[in-house]
């Protein structure tokens, strides 16, 4: 099964992290990504750009209509997402809990619909 993990945050929160802590945070993140790429369970890990770069795209009269996003006026935006492919939900939850920031902020966890009927 595949699982989507999402991490939320906002600029204010990220600005509050002292610059000298970044290298260690990045190293921990890299180690996490490396570990689960090696097991074949991490399909991809992606950090998103700042919210000012988000756009909303519609099609109006057959032509793309693009406005500044994001869609919802929320305090926190999606900051990064991971796609896992794991043997069981239990295993995926265990990996989600190992995301370096999971001791600070909750990781949103979504099973991804599967094209094959679920096995017994």
């Amino acid at each position, binding site marked *: *099964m*595949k699982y989507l993990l999402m991490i939320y945050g906002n600029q204010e929160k990220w600005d509050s992290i002292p610059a000298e802590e970044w290298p260690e945070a990045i190293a921990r993140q890299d180690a996490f990504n490396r570990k689960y*790429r*090696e*097991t*074949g369970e*991490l*399909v*991809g890990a992606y950090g998103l750009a700042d919210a000012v770069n988000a756009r909303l795209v519609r099609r109006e009269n057959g032509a793309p209509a693009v406005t500044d996003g994001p869609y919802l006026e929320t305090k926190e935006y999606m900051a990064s997402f991971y796609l896992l*492919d794991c*043997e069981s939900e239990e295993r995926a939850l265990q990996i989600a809990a190992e995301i370096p920031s999971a001791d600070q902020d909750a990781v949103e966890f979504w*099973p991804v*619909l*599967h*094209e*094959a*009927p*679920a*096995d*017994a």
Partner: protein
Amino acid sequence: MSGAPGVEDLLRELAPQVLVALVRRYGGFDLCEDAVQEALLAAALSWPAEGVPDNPRGWLVTVASRRLVDQVRAERSRRLREDRVVLATPQSELLARPADADPETDRDDSLTLLFLCCHPALSTPSRIALTLRAVGGLSTAQIAAAFLVPEPTMAQRISRAKQSIRTSNLPFRPPEAAERAERLAEVLHVLYLIFNEGYTASDGDSLTAPSLSGEAIRLTRLLRRALPEDPEVLGLLALMLFADARRPARTAPDGSLVPLSEQDRSRWDRALVDEAAALLTRALGGASPLGPYQLQAAIAGVHTEAADPSATDWPQILGLYDLLEKIAPNPVTSLNRAVAVAMVHGPAPALELLAALEADARLSRGHRLLATRAHLLELQGDLTEAASAYRAAAHRALSAPERRHLLTRAARLSPKAS
């Protein structure tokens, strides 16, 4: 295999034999496996243009051996595993061996290879990936496409599996007699999982993503050649063929799932049904006790015998589920048995059985219990309740085709409800 198989079919047929030849000569499953993949690639590139060599297997063994030598030399130069591989075997000896020199040994060898790839020391996804590559001869890219993951993800899974074989020192030999039955059950389970993964409504682009159910059937046929009279092997193959026979009727033109009771039975593949029935008869004719695959195949067989759903012999199906629940208890079996109870004794006692199953944590979080309840409520005529149970089941379903199917059923029962 009949007729003249294409180059790809031939290569995949030879892949496990070449791998075994290398492992026997040199040891070191992981390096041999890499070398065989490279030889298969070289053949796939050169054979279609230059023609298939007279002794294709000898060609592959020679090329793979050279690749292995290259790899080992490279590793040696890095001072790794200096004394692992003995390279003294004359190439002439490898070349001289005709393709079908010793069919007896080939059969045993592919079995040993399956046992190794499905070893319980490996995780289930690793077993599946390794079986498809080492025994099935599929490339990493093809396996990745079949499972809808990027190639590097699958490459990591395979290399990790091979690393586990190396570090756990798993031997390349058949399991001891004492654990043989258990290990064979693991092999059958892996093949069954591969089949189920591929038993989908849409098979996608068959050029890039091979049909996993077709591959599972091919591998199970290979296993059957090694163990022609094993009743569970026969049972699993029969089960797969019964299911595969229904494939043409299982999907509506719009891609949605058609349940068994609504399938156009004239579209079932009769040749596959007949083959499955013959295998099942043979399996059940043996003296050994019935196993779970024989029983599941027998249930599929009873369904298939009925010319239309109303002619289904439900008492016989219920009897088979009783046995299955006894020898291989499983919550999904209990749910299916409840449906058979409903068909024999009416929905009320079946709903009581379901109530008793609610405590099972494996069922309470998923969609199956709710979907079965919806079906039973529909049989009982409680259409409003059935529709809401179908909707609740759809919310929990994690498979896109099943979710669409459950929502369609809900909509059919309450067309005005939103």
